[in-house]
């Protein structure tokens, strides 16, 4: 079981007093596409940079295919960082040459394929002149040129228009389908996630709130709706509840429908929204 593509063991990362991550344990199944969600500052980017070996955990350990990650990139892993740092003064062609030079395993063909997709990126253009979408496409080409077995994508869709978003996801998913890549993908765009992800990893305040196969996670939760004023009695855990003058709506984890409430299975968006709202409520309560 130690050969899981990515496995985190009691992982923590502290920046001074701030606990970006605390006590995270999970493992990603081979070939899964996992959506990494959570409110801003939940530790998503920190987690991805720890897996990539860009930062060292304060405590705990990450293993990639059974090998511990210590301060450098595992050859099987590829990371698309949120800020898309690229050598701005290079042309796209030069940047791809740089990718080839910096990697032991590199497929120029794969990188070119990615660049030629969609409208195609002009390979003689300076990187700094590219649009946000083309820049992301170039960054993805660099990421996939490494022929990763584990692909980490930090907000791959954030600065793209809906069409480019759809097409970018298609580039990534084609790679996953062809090569069986394991993907961990952070995003705020829940509808997009729902289309491509089969697993969910929900972080809040540096801790794992939910981890597992999306269908199972959804089965394990229910949205209950009942008249206002009625007590919410359940064996499960009330993740989040909201009240209007007429009715009470709640997201409940675990079984046991409370009496007098209508229950239904949540969709991914409702589930994640419930957790995000609960997180915000907790933070306000502390202030």
């Amino acid at each position, binding site marked *: 079981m130690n050969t899981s593509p990515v496995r985190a063991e009691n992982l923590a990362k502290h920046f001074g007093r701030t606990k970006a991550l605390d006590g995270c344990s999970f493992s990603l199944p081979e070939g899964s596409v996992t959506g990494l969600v959570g409110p801003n500052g939940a530790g998503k980017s920190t987690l991805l940079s720890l897996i990539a070996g860009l930062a060292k955990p304060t405590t705990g350990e990450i293993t990639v295919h059974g090998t511990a990650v210590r301060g*450098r*990139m595992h*050859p099987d892993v590829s990371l698309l960082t949120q800020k898309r*740092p*690229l*050598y701005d003064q*290079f042309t796209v062609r030069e940047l791809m040459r740089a990718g080839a030079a*910096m990697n032991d395993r590199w497929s120029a063909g794969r990188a070119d394929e990615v660049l030629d997709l969609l409208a195609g990126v002009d390979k003689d253009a300076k990187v700094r002149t590219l649009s946000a979408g083309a820049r992301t496409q170039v960054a993805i080409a660099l990421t996939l040129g490494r022929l990763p077995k584990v692909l980490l994508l930090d907000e791959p869709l954030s600065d793209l228009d809906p069409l480019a978003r759809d097409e970018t996801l298609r580039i990534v998913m084609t790679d996953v389908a062809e090569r069986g890549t394991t993907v961990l993908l952070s995003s705020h765009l829940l509808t997009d996630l729902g289309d491509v992800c089969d697993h969910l990893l929900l972080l809040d305040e540096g801790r794992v709130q939910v981890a597992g196969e999306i269908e199972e996670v959804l089965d394990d939760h229910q949205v209950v709706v009942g008249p206002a004023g009625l007590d919410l009695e359940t064996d499960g855990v009330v993740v989040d509840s909201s009240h209007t003058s007429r009715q009470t709506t709640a997201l409940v984890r675990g079984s046991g429908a409370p009496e007098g409430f209508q229950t239904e299975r949540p969709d991914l968006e409702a589930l994640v929204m419930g957790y995000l709202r609960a997180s915000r409520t907790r933070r306000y309560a502390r202030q």
Partner: protein
Amino acid sequence: MTWIVWRQQRPVFITLVAGLAVAVVAVLVLRASMSADLVARNLVDCAAKGLEACMGPAATEFQTAWFDKMHIALATVLAAPVLIGVFVGAPLFAREFEQGTHALAFTQSVSRTRWMATKFLVAALPALVVVVVYQLVVHSWLDVAGQLGPLSTGEFYFTVFDSRGVSPVAYTLFAYTLGMFAGALFKRTLVAMTLTLGLFVVVRVVVGGVRESLITPTRLISGDVAEPAVADRGPLVVRSGYLDAKGNVIADPAPMMNCGSKADAQGVVDTAACYRENGLAQRYADVIPTDQATTLHLLEGSIFAGLAVLFVLGSVWAVRRQV
């Protein structure tokens, strides 16, 4: 990896090479024009002998025309290392951290050590070559003027000493690694540039002040107490003063030099006799002879090279701990 750093540093290289080309052409033109002037004023032989041997308006006029120009050229050789430190060393890592592109390199297969080593070498080598070439070209100009030019101030005068031998290379290595370390530590190009400029000047002044104590000086003794023990401007005088009859250094000879009242009938003071009467037996000078200049260059250079090694280790540490 070499190609990547070369491509990244290309604007810097172009600036360096263009700057060097302009400077070399300027120096060679000045050198040719000065050579012609030497011939025209019939001073070619004087260049070897010095101003004292060639008293006359021609030599003085020649110096008025050329001396300061050559000194300015020497000053540019002194400035070259800190320019390299500020404009090549300081941005080397700081700019990557500012723009986040270090993460691009760190997310590929290349190790951080190899990334650092390649950046260090590929950026440093051309800078060092530029400094050395410029140093040699400027000195080829100064050699033409010989003792009529700044070289007459002696091997140890700071503009001459600091621009000769291994010194410019040592200063450049120091400035470059200082800039690199400051950039790796503070991750801000402007901060690193400012620190490099400030620290370079401070360390150069401090080391320049104490470097003469790196060599045990040779003591020159003169029996003539009225004349200094060293006459010419060649050796570096570390200390000088008077010895008593037993050969001990007299700490404060000032009271024993009070000979104003010893004037004879004509009002002439026999200073030497008066000094001897007061107990000043000999004059001495502790000097570093001219032929030890190379040793001093190497000793001072090794201090700066040692600091450079520390800065390299510091940079490695700073980059490795970087997220």
